[in-house]
């Protein structure tokens, strides 16, 4: 193993990877199912609300005043209407949404997404009923990769760090990044409450900087080890 002496500390990089992982995780949870009262309670901690506010995430006035039970009920209906149907809805699946994609449920894109999980050593856990290219599964995948990346930084395993960063970059390039922004825009157009548009904004904003951030992080491996870092970047540029 090469000795890594980063300009930014490993701890710092590990920490930011954890943050990214958690943000992916939060978004995965939000788009996975309708929020429970407990989830809303946890969401409304002062720290998180401040953080949301700083990030420009606005849940609307009702979120501050209405009882959680009412909000949960409204959002359950909203979630169903937006993402499940029955009837017209915005299917949260890559194969259905991808521009010029197959347009069908469990299309060829879904298989590619599943292959990407498998190639990275993952698969959908039983008895999860989500289809592999559901938005929340894709986000969950990135959350796990970022979490493992954090560990790799902490363990100063640069080969593994680089690999995990490459996987994230490749997955965003080939999958999530290709459809999420368009999907988020549609969610904004169709929502009745501010909740999902707020998270759609958050997802879009966050994702838009992800690839540059990943390249930057890879280059930080490079800063410590020109040889290794250069190769990693080369892989991405290819």
């Amino acid at each position: 193993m090469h000795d890594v002496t980063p300009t930014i500390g490993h701890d710092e990089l590990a920490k930011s990877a954890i943050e990214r992982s958690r943000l992916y995780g939060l978004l995965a949870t939000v788009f996975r199912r309708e929020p429970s009262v407990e989830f809303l309670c946890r969401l409304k901690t002062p720290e998180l609300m401040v953080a949301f506010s700083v990030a420009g995430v606005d849940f609307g006035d009702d979120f501050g005043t209405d009882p959680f039970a009412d909000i949960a009920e409204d959002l359950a209906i909203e979630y169903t209407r937006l993402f499940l149907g029955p009837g017209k809805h915005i299917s949260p699946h890559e194969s259905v949404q991808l521009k010029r994609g197959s347009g069908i449920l469990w299309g060829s894109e879904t298989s590619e997404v599943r292959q990407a999980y498998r190639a990275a050593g993952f698969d959908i856990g039983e008895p999860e009923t989500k289809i592999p290219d559901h938005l929340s599964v894709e986000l969950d995948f990135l959350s796990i990769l970022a979490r493992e990346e954090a560990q790799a930084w902490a363990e100063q395993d640069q080969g593994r760090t680089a690999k995990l960063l490459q996987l994230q970059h490749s997955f965003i390039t080939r999958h999530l990044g290709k459809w999420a922004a368009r999907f988020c825009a549609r969610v904004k157009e169709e929502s009745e409450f501010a909740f999902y548009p707020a998270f759609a904004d958050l997802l879009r904003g966050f994702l838009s900087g992800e690839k540059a951030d990943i390249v930057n992080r890879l280059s930080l491996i490079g800063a410590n080890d020109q040889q290794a870092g250069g190769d990693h970047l080369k892989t991405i540029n290819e």
Partner: protein
Amino acid sequence: MLNRRNFLQVGAAVPLSVLAGEALVRRVSAGPVIGGKDFSPDTGKERQAIPSACWQCVTRCPNISYVEDGRLVKIEGQPKSIRTNGVMCSKGQGGVGQFSDPDRILYPMRRVGKRGEGKWKRVSWDEALGEIATRMKKLRDAGTPEKVMFHYGRMKASHSKLIKSLFLANYGTGTIGNHTSICEAAKWTAQEMTWGGHYDNWDFDHANYVLNFGSNVLESHTNHIPTSHRLIARLTEKRIRMVTFDIRLSNTAAKSSEWVPVKPGTDRAVILAMCNVVMNEDLYKGDGEAFLKFVKVSTGRKASIADKVVALKAHLTGYTPEWAEKISGVPAGKIRTIARDVATVKPACIITYRGAVSHHHGADTERAAQMLASITGNIDRPGSRCKAVGAKWKYPKGPKKKPKTRKLKILDGLPGAAKMPTHHVSHQVLKMIKDGSAGRPEIYMWYCYTPVYANGEVQENIDILKDEKLIPFSVCVDPFYDESAALADIILPDTPYTERWGWEDMVSPTQVPEYYIRQPAVKPLGECRDFADVCIDLADRMGFPLGVKNHEDFVKASCEMTSAVKAAGGFEYMKANGVYHDPKVKPRYYSYMKVLKPDAYQKPGIVMDPATGVYWNWKKAKVASEEEALKKGYTHTKKAYKAYVGQEIDGVVYSGFKPDKLNKSGYLELYSEIVEAKGLPAMPSWTPAPEHEAMKSGDLILTTFKVAAQIHSRSANCKYLTEISYDNPAWINPVTAAARGIADGDAIKVKSEFGEIETTARVTPAIVPGAVAISHHCGHWEYGRYASGKKAPSGRNEPDSDRIWWTSNGTHPNWIIGNRADPISGQLRFMDTVVTLEKAGASA
């Protein structure tokens, strides 16, 4: 000059010694791959091939479903099937769309707005089933299980056994509606009146002549591919003659040797006239005459063949070809020629379907066809219409003790609707609920059925289903959001057939039974669950376990219990092969001629009914004693047909034509005292439709039909199919069109007493004047993007919405078709509606 011969001479001169020793290409299998294997065009990897079965239409062809990376990519025919020989229709191939429909329902839903408002909330299965079980249990505990009405559309074989025979029977409701009355009930009732158990297999493999009344067998049929591919082979390879009577030049008519246009609803007149010709020209002599031994054409049972001939001639005397010409528009000469052909070219297969029977007294049209087939000797012999043969599965029967079922008397239509509705009048169930005089269900649950769209009088169906006073609680079991699901209180997401188990038993065209199974090509998507599994769950929740774990277990147990299948290797064999037939079994013909051994009918409990000559088991019929059985008689004992043993004819006891649903004798009854007792003609007769008699000048008759690439109401969500068949202009003859100033492509209004629809005109000589024909599979206003043209919300659409290039999704004719019933069988008279036609915008 060098030519090809010169080159070949070089080849001839090459000695083996000059060839390299080892070939580069080697054979790796016995022959070319003709099915059962498929490869990914991208990776070249072999796809997983799963033997399964189609469920697009009731034919339920065995299929092979190909899966690549968990994705159902392709469905093709099962080459090992003796029913299909590996052939599959477009609908079957398009079934991949059931799996991949982006508008599928993946989770249980509960409505949260007003009924029909379209506001829903996802609920867990536990919550949905908890509520349903609580409501159902309450009704059961109160001694009123009949207040749960279950209404199904397509439910066959193992699904029917699990859901109906196990779950509903053990729950205790008999308020079970079906959809046979909108399909072919008239045919079935007529067959039960004449030769017993329903379903006629058409043995095209051996037919030398086919006479068709109103069947579009090459595009759609209850045994579509198994029969149609044989018919095509026979027509093309043996060049046999086929004559099709139809109001429209269907593709079947077009591929026939001759299309004979006929006025709507008048096939019976033509058939009766053909019978007249056959009898009067002594064309019955030979096979027909011999067959008369097994036929009843008058009262009593002692008539000689000569008596029978006299009776038939007497009955048919007025039904001359000239008489029929006036009614049907078919020239008398043509009727005579075809009658002579069908009587003399042996064997002839006389076939009928909805075009002929979906009318007033449609059951009598089928009886008339039975008459023509009988007197020409074309019954149950190779090449004719035969008694159906299907697989006989054994299966777990569930708890031994079942409650006595109770039912609301709402299944057989409005009072006086039909005199012999042996398959119910389910299209009038909603009217009966509205009427309320026979009680109303508290829970109305429907499965694989769309009461709104499939029946006539669509607006009334909507109004009733929406009314919470009439139907307090409704449950829809459906993988898709169709027009009826939109009006439910709870939607349980069923699996499409691509994700479920089942064993199947559909009729075999070879007269040899074929056993086959359906297995899931892929795991159910989302939280979809096979409704058979859901029923097992519901039974557990209500405290009456059915003794089976799930549908897969049921299929497995059935494979082990059914001796033929078990001997072949049971469940494992079926999973690997999908289909099984015993190669030693001979095709079954002439089953009625089987002579019973004395020990079959000379045993305690069995008596001969002197009035009919029927041997029957009075003990099985639950009669107290032999004296009582003899006194009451077979005909007048409730459900005595279930105790039928055989039929005595001229001192010999035959299997005969075993009755079903009616206490008929073992004769093929062209004369039916049972029918006569209901105030209906004892023999097939001409009875015109009252509304046709009352038609005014300018009135037309609306008929409907099916197209090759769609089934009636469950395939328009399959994108490949709807891309082929997305519109359904109204066919009208140029004469009809000219009289109204209508040109091809004009927007038109079609009006009946039930309402009006707007569509476009397809002006074509391929339909008789005086009729309008509109296919029925279009005009969806729900059922997802492909079927309805409704796109997902927001300005920017999803790619597969943007690809919908067709701009019309057609018009549903059922808005203007009445839910009327054939007064005999109760069949919905789809082809009888009187309409007027005008150019849209022509009237204020």
